[in-house]
């Protein structure tokens, strides 16, 4: 067997034996019921029946080994049919032959070889059919299990691919932000030592959060907001009086679970495009509130909406900061229960995000 996992390796032989034994038992049982309907069988007849069915059960084992040896499942259709017929024919004879031998040894009249030989054609025919049916069932079930296994593997592969894609969409630290911040800290050291220290503290707090490699789907909004507060503390030291930030986060909204770094790309965009299009000072406001329907978050920045059309506007590849990425993450985590829209109004760009409660779940 190529490429089976450990669980799969154990399951297949067990499955075979369970099916094989129960199949023969069922056949033996049904067959006996039909044959003995209304009649009572003597002990010897019962014994002989058991031997007959038992031999059938046993003969299938070397038959299976034979099929595996010749790699039956790889044979083309006609050849496999011919092989199955031949194997069943031969097997039927061996089976009957053994019964004859046992009859001779026992010397019971009921087991007389002559009885069996008189009905030779019928006896052989029955056995050949049985073995053929067995062969067919064996390969049918085998194929079905193989197919199931492939489907499982495909499913797993899909999940892994999706997972990898999601990782790419995850926020990754914006190198511009990091190096610009370090640059500012260096400049502040001899100008305002206190500020330089504060900035280092804020930066390390922010990095601690953003470098966490796990992709959380249930971070309380207030943790996200903490990271954003650190981010803005740094930005305000860099941009000084060119940047103002306003927060309006309802306490209940703070408890609502969101995706890690879902909001951050939106905030970065607000700063980037706001700095470009807004009269100074750029004002960014963040609001979050809960309602019966769920959570609503809005990020506004003074300025105008602009398309990222220049190369220097594109997010550095793979930093997960595009609006597209946010949308995809929302679709993945809150399928059909979110809203994501942006519009320009009153000299501000608004980005609004709604996450709706799944039915029956309330967040207190």
């Amino acid at each position, binding site marked *: 067997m190529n490429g089976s996992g450990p669980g799969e390796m154990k399951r297949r032989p067990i499955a075979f034996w369970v099916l094989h034994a129960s199949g023969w038992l069922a056949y033996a049982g049904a067959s006996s019921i039909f044959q003995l309907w209304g009649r009572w069988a003597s002990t010897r007849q019962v014994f002989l029946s058991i031997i007959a069915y038992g031999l059938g059960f046993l003969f299938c084992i070397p038959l299976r080994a034979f099929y595996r040896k010749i790699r039956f499942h790889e044979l083309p259709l006609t050849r496999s049919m011919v092989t199955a017929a031949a194997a069943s024919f031969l097997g039927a004879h061996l089976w009957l032959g053994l019964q004859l031998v046992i009859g001779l040894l026992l010397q019971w009249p009921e087991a007389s070889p002559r009885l069996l030989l008189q009905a030779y054609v019928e006896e052989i025919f029955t056995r050949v059919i049985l073995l053929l049916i067995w062969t067919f069932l064996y390969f049918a079930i085998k194929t079905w299990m193989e197919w199931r296994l492939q489907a499982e593997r495909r499913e797993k592969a899909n999940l892994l691919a999706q997972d990898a894609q999601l990782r790419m969409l995850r926020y990754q630290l914006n190198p511009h932000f990091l190096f610009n911040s*370090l*640059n500012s800290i260096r400049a502040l050291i001899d100008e305002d030592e206190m500020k330089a220290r504060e900035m280092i503290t804020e930066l390390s707090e922010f990095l601690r959060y953003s470098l966490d490699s796990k992709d959380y789907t249930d971070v309380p909004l207030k943790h996200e907001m903490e990271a954003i507060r650190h981010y803005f503390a740094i930005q305000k030291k860099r941009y000084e009086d060119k940047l103002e930030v306003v927060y309006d986060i309802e306490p209940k909204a703070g408890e609502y679970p969101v995706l890690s770094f879902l909001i951050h790309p939106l905030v970065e965009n607000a700063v980037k495009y706001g700095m*470009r299009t807004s009269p100074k000072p750029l004002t960014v406001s963040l609001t979050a509130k809960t309602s019966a329907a769920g959570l609503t978050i809005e990020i506004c920045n003074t300025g105008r909406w602009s398309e990222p059309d220049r190369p220097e506007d594109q997010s550095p590849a793979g930093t997960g900061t595009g609006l597209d990425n946010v949308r995809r993450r929302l679709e993945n985590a809150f399928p059909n229960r979110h809203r994501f829209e942006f519009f320009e109004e009153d000299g501000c760009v608004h980005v609004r995000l709604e996450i709706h409660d799944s039915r029956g779940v309330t967040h207190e």
Partner: protein
Amino acid sequence: MNKPIRALVVDDERLARKDLIALLGAHDQVTVIGEADDVPSAVEAIRALNPDLIFLDIQMPGDSGFDLLEKMDVEAQVIFVTAYDEFAIRAFEVNALDYLLKPVNPERLAKALEKR
């Protein structure tokens, strides 16, 4: 090699300009003759002061450093100063003298100045 160099520093962040000017202080032949915090004021400063060398940030509000070079014929040599290296190839295309990463390494700055 030690010709006096008249330099203009263009960056939208005051602290970034301050940091670079502090580093340039170690080079006697360089005199910073002006600063600008966006492309329009940079254009004005270039016309008024006629610098030999311009330290140019790329990502600025409004027009970028590249936009400045497209907007006017600049006789001065240009050294780009930016936080991350994704624009290095484009810097080559516009014949920049060099491309420095913030926070600028003093030794790297010295090498860039030697290229003049």
